[in-house]
């Protein structure tokens, strides 16, 4: 099969129905490499995602990495599937102040039904601030 360019993949992703969770996170695809099963996304770490200490709530960083990993997984299968997460482990390396953040998702191994994933989250300075691994499964998308 002819591999999509990153621009084609991002355009393909944009044809999916709007996703509330992605909108909330200010999700924006920067690079989708279907051949490498890799996605790099920008997210908005908003003030409303913060704890009382004024840093981003870890769960929202998980949500960002979850999304980047899901995009990487769906890119590996031409965006024909959705990928509900079965389990995820997150390590929070440092507190993350609000701002524009980058998350990367990478497929480690995609089987017929199960996919193993890695995620990374970088703060506004570009320093690695959180990491994740996840296991998800492919489910046929409800749209074409």
């Amino acid at each position, binding site marked *: 099969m002819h591999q999509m360019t990153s621009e084609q993949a991002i355009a393909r992703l944009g044809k999916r129905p709007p996703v509330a969770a992605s909108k909330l996170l200010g999700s924006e695809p920067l690079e989708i490499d279907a051949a490498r099963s890799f996605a790099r996304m920008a997210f908005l770490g908003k003030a409303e995602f913060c704890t009382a200490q004024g840093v981003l709530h870890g*769960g929202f960083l998980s949500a960002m990495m979850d999304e980047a990993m899901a995009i990487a997984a769906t890119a590996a299968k031409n965006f024909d599937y959705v990928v509900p997460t079965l*389990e*995820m482990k997150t390590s929070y390396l440092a507190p993350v102040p609000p701002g524009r953040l980058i998350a990367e998702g990478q497929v480690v191994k995609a089987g017929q039904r199960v996919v193993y994933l890695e995620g990374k989250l970088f703060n506004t300075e570009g320093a690695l601030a959180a990491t994740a691994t996840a296991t998800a499964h492919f489910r046929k998308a409800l749209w074409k």
Partner: protein
Amino acid sequence: MTAPLSGPAALLRRQQQHDRGPAARLLGHQLTAMDTALGTVEVEFLAAPHLFNPLGMMQGGFTAAMLDQAMVDAVTALTDLQYHVVMQAMQCNFLAAIGPGRLLCRASMLRQGRSTAFVEARLFESAGELAATATAVTALQPAIPH
């Protein structure tokens, strides 16, 4: 002015008044019960459309956010607000899809050390079915005066 509460009710009230910031509000967070003897807290969340994925179910990341918040709550409450509790690492299992509704999360502190605490949580969807579980390691830092 109501009469001042005492005992467990006062303890719970104090924990409920502790400011958790805007992220908890976005998740519809509410601490509803705590049992210091069992080392357990109960927290309610609201699964609402702004947290949903293309399947109309909660995006796993937000499920993780709820488990995260409940586990931090458990350690914060059961150490009586002595520490600023920071999540270090957590692992979540997503057992079932979560649709819209009020969710119950039960979180238990398993072991408190000098500078870390181990904690686990179970999240039940609105019909009462177990939908997600988590375990975590948290850091106990000296509390910011409040």
